[in-house]
């Protein structure tokens, strides 16, 4: 790899730079297309089955005072809205927590 003249290397450098620029611009174009395509797909109206009733569901374990405070905060922030459900965000799945607990506790087999 020692026989290359500076002129050849300059040409190689310019070629590499140009190729990098073309790929970078193509990446930018791909990003634009992705964003436009996925945004359009998200905007498409979806036919969703309407639930027969949409009554507020209050999980038993939440304190009524907390429900009242959340409702008041929602009212103050976004105005009058019909709250359908209040509860914890859905977790990734109970089995992962169980496996993790077993894994973490594996070094204490007798506890």
């Amino acid at each position, binding site marked *: *790899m*020692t026989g*290359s003249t*500076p002129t*050849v*290397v*300059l040409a*190689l*450098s*310019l*070629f*590499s*730079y140009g*190729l*990098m*620029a073309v*790929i*970078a*611009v193509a*990446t*930018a*174009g*791909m*990003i*634009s297309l*992705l*964003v436009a395509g*996925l*945004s359009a797909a*998200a905007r498409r109206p979806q036919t969703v089955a309407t639930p027969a009733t949409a009554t507020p569901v209050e999980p038993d374990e939440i304190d009524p005072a907390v429900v009242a405070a959340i409702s008041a905060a929602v009212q103050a922030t976004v105005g009058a809205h019909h709250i359908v459900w209040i509860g914890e965000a859905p977790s990734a799945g109970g089995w992962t927590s169980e496996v*993790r607990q077993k894994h973490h506790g594996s070094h204490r087999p007798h506890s």
Partner: protein
Amino acid sequence: MPDIQILDLFQGIATLVSSEPHLIVGRIGLMLLGFLLMYLGYKGVLEALLMIPMGLGMATVNAGVLDFGHGRRGTLFLDPLATTNDQVMTQMQIDWLQPIYSLTFSNGLIACLVFLGIGTLLDVGFLMVRPFRSMFLAICAELGTLVTFPLGVLMGLPINQAAATATIGGADGPMVLFASLVLAPEIFVPITVVGYLYLGLTYGGYPYIVKALVPARLRAIEMPPEPVKPISPGQKMVFAVVSCVVLSLLFPVAAPLFLSLFVGVVVREAGLKYFYELFSNQMLYGATFFLGLVLGVLCEASTILNPKVLILLVLGILALTFSAIGGLIGGYVLYFLSGGKYNPVIGIAAVSCVPTTAKVAQKLVSASNPRSIIMPHALGANISGVITSAIFAAVLVTVVRIAG
């Protein structure tokens, strides 16, 4: 009582005074440099996370040289010259950092681990909001690599070593480590040390370049408000997956780096919080610590004192300076195209030293105009810089291998 010479008791001093003059100067100079790096890291002039372990490693390894008998000298840290399986296995049982070096450095794993951590820190949404502007700036900020590659050959380096050194212009530490391991393993230690030293300097040095090239009234420009399309995590994941596969298809030689970067992005956007916490904290900082420590330990005088180091020092600073100038030229182009509404300082953030250069840009702009917020634009350019650096390194590795 046997006849014991005082210097036989203190082998570090004995090996120092009995060395050749250039090694005596080199060892003392590198010890002092180690102290200086630690001090500058502690003071915040250089990147402390890297420079403090690196500086102490550098000072200690040059103090701790001992005689092994039969005319052999070395340290109990690591032996970078061990190449055969037998040598490596023997050194792994003697030198405490040899396992880290042999199993994570020489195969590029540590660069990939750092890249994985960086991937979890990247919000590609900043890039996806304005992809063309960000990519344009990033392309301009690769000027240092473009210029340094032929300059290296002009200064007497073989083409593979010149190309590996030129990747310093991409201002991406793991990329420099990876490219030098692939292209020029014979001098990867000095290239990587020089690269990381200079990358540590960007936070302190780049503001001077910006102030010299961009007048205060332009640094104070406020970016006009613009409608910003929200980018969902799903869109970011699709971008990461498609980019990873397509770029790996184009440049298999850099596929490990692409996978490391984009899997970090995917972990972040998929909300895998346990992986996210692991990669963005323990993994990234653990890898950075060992990277700094091993780089410092590799700076033992007999290893690092190579006539090419001076050339690498010159090329390294030229590469980063030209990249900064290129980024600012890109910023000026957008300034003129936008009719004077675009802050040209954002161009410096396209030099992909994530997130240092974006912070430098915002700091300089805030000093001129506290109301001007350019960080979202700067981060977009910054992330584009990471991607263009990876692409440029992959192109160079491929082209140089074909040419060689």
